[in-house]
């Protein structure tokens, strides 16, 4: 599974993109976040306030209940500020 982080999430976690192989019981984004938070203090900090974070699965906006599976691309980022 490919996981991407943008803006301050990338800075807190220290990488913009990584390949991860979570256990089979990680079936939705919420479980993926809980699993990622175990990876270190940067993750813990980045995912502290889930209300402040938006996410996408396979480049479409999704929510924490969205299912994830092997091969998916999951991205985490703050609310967008373009234009």
């Amino acid at each position: 599974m490919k996981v991407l982080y943008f803006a301050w999430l990338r800075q807190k976690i220290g990488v913009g993109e990584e390949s991860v192989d979570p256990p089979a019981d990680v079936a939705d984004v919420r479980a993926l976040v809980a699993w990622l938070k175990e990876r270190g203090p940067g993750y813990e900090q980045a995912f502290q306030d889930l209300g402040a974070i938006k996410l996408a699965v396979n480049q479409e906006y999704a929510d924490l209940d969205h299912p994830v599976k092997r091969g998916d691309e999951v991205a985490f980022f703050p609310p967008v500020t373009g234009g």
Partner: protein
Amino acid sequence: MTVKVQREDFDPGREIEALSAGNPKVGGVCSFVGLVRDMNDVAGQMSDVGALTLEHYPGMTERQLEEIEAEAHRRWPLEASLIVHRYGRMTPGERIVLVATASPHREAAFEACHFLIDWLKTKAPFWKVEETGAGAERWVEARDSDDAAAARWAEKG
């Protein structure tokens, strides 16, 4: 429908001209150009901005912009539309974004152009980080007023 996501600057005149070139059905073209401001309102205080850097999500950005454009074409009778959005580092006065719409009639062109920039600001995955002096930076926070602007275009149903 055209979407361009690029680092380099663009020429609004040339882009707008190309939008209606060779299409005599176009009766009006409406455009919006967004620029880097030298001041930003941070929690009610005006704060200097030296420069900003726009980060984006390659792939999803283009996809979202194409979806937003397709939605504009679904709602208004447009002959053509264009979104050009830059990323990378920019200083005050530089162009960030161009949105343009071409239609047989002005009303559709005006409304679709307004819709495109309002939706883009809340849906396209771009993030701005401002340089605030002495090597410090600040991620720009999303504004409720932008959400409200986008919500105006919610379809009644």
